[in-house]
C-alpha cells in the first residue's frame, strides 16, 4: 500500500455507495455468469482508472487458493442437486462445483470492490463524509486516520519482517510462518503502542478535542455525473434485492 494511494478520486459518498452496490450485487447474485460479469466489470474499471493491477492479480491468486479449498469442502459436504457419484461414505452431488465457483466469485467481487474504494478515497474526504452523518469529529476522524496510518504501519511491518529475516527468521514454509508470527507481531505491537502514544500527544498539543466544533479547509463536492451514477447504483441495488427475495425471476 502506498502513501499517495488515490488513483481516481471521487466523492467519498459515491465511493461508499459503489462499495455497497458491489456487496449487494455479490450477495444477491445467484448465477455464475452474472457474478463473473460483475467481477470482470470491476477488473475492467480498474484497468480504465489506472489502478495498480498487480494488487488485483495478487488478490485473485489468493482467491484461487480459496477456490481450490472450497471445491474440496463442497465435494465432501454439499448435498444439493443430483447424486453423480459415490465412493464409500463420500457422495458427490452435481451442485458442489457451481457452489464453490459462486463462493469464489462472491469473494472476488468483495475484494475487488474494496480495492476500488481504497484507490478512490482520500482520508480527508472520508472524514468529511462521516462528519456529514452527524458523527462527532473526535470519532469521525478515526476512519480517515486509519487510511493515513495504513501505509505507515505497513512499511513498519515490512521493515520488521526484513530485520527478522536478516536475523535468521525464515518465513518460507507453513511451519516457519507459524513460528515467525511471534518474532514479528510482538515488535510491531510495541512499536505501534509507542506510535499511538506519540501521535495522541502530538494531536492534543495541536488542540485536538479542545472544542466541540471545528472547521475544515476542504468541502465535499459531488460532480453531476456522480449524482447520476448514484441514482443508477440505487436502482441496481433495489432491483438486485427484489430479484433475490421476491419470486420475480428464477
Amino acid at each position, binding site marked *: 500500500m502506498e502513501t499517495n494511494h488515490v488513483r481516481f478520486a471521487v466523492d467519498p459518498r459515491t465511493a461508499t455507495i459503489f*462499495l455497497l452496490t458491489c*456487496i449487494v450485487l455479490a*450477495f444477491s447474485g445467484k448465477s455464475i455468469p452474472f457474478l463473473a460479469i460483475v467481477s470482470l466489470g470491476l477488473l475492467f474499471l480498474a484497468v480504465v482508472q489506472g489502478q495498480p493491477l498487480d*494488487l488485483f492479480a495478487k*488478490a485473485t491468486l*489468493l*482467491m484461487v*487458493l*480459496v477456490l481450490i*479449498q*472450497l471445491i474440496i*469442502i*463442497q465435494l*465432501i*459436504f*454439499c*448435498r*444439493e442437486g443430483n447424486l453423480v457419484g459415490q465412493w464409500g461414505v463420500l457422495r458427490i452431488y452435481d451442485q458442489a462445483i457451481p457452489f*464453490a465457483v459462486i*463462493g469464489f466469485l*462472491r*469473494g472476488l467481487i*468483495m*475484494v*475487488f470492490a*474494496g*480495492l476500488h*474504494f*481504497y484507490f478512490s478515497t482520500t482520508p480527508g474526504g472520508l472524514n468529511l463524509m462521516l462528519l456529514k452523518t452527524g458523527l462527532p469529529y*473526535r*470519532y469521525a476522524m*478515526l*476512519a480517515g*486516520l*486509519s487510511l493515513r*496510518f*495504513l501505509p505507515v*504501519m*505497513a512499511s513498519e*511491518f515490512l521493515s520488521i519482517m526484513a530485520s527478522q529475516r536478516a536475523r535468521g527468521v525464515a518465513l518460507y514454509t*507453513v511451519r516457519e*510462518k*507459524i513460528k*515467525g*508470527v511471534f518474532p*514479528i*507481531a510482538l515488535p*510491531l*505491537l*510495541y512499536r*505501534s*503502542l*509507542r506510535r*499511538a*502514544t506519540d*501521535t*495522541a*500527544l502530538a*494531536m492534543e498539543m495541536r488542540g485536538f*478535542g479542545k472544542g466541540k466544533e471545528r472547521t475544515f479547509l476542504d468541502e465535499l463536492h459531488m460532480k453531476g455525473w456522480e449524482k447520476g451514477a448514484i441514482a443508477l447504483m440505487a436502482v441496481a441495488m433495489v432491483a438486485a434485492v427484489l430479484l433475490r427475495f421476491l419470486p420475480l425471476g428464477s
Partner: protein
Amino acid sequence: MNQEAVPQINEKKKFWRTDTKALVGAVVMGIVFVLVQQLTVRIDTLLDPSLNLFNGITWAVFTGLIALVYRQPAGLITGEIQAFVCLISGASPLAPFFILANGLGSLAYSAVAQQFSMERWGHHFLAMLACNFVGNIFVSIGLMVVLKLTLVPAILASLLTIAVGTVGGTIIVKPLAGVVKNSGLV
C-alpha cells in the same frame, strides 16, 4: 495528556475510556491487527480457509487485548477499523461480516471482563469464550452466505475456531496484557 482519563489495566468496573490515546491507539492497533492477520490469513489459506484457526487466535488476542488495555469504545473502534481495512484492502472475502463479528465480540469480552477482576486464568477464559462465541456466529453466517458452505461444515468450522481461539487467546492475552501494562505505553 489527560491523566485522569487514563486508567490502569487492573482498575475494575470501568467500561469506557475516551481519551485521545485510547482512540488513536484503537486505530493504530486496528491496522496492526490487519497486518498480523496478513501472516495468519496466508497460513490459514494454505491449511483450510473455512477453519480460520490462526486467524481466529489472532482475532481473539487483539480483541481481548484492546478491550482490556484501551477498553470501550476503543475495542469497538479497533474491530471496526480492522473490518474496514480488511474490506478496502481486499484482505478477506468475509470482511463485511467482520463488522458485526468484531464489534459484538469486543462488547461481549468487555461485558464479561467487567464482572471479574481479570487476575485469574478462569476470568480470561470466560471473557474469551463469550467473545469467540459471539464473533464466530457472524463468521459462520459469512461462511454460508459468501463462501456458500452448507450449515454443517460452517458450524463445525466455527466450533473448531471457537475452541482454538478461546484456548489460544486466553493463553496469549493474560501474559501479554501484563507485558503491555509494564511497558508504560498505555
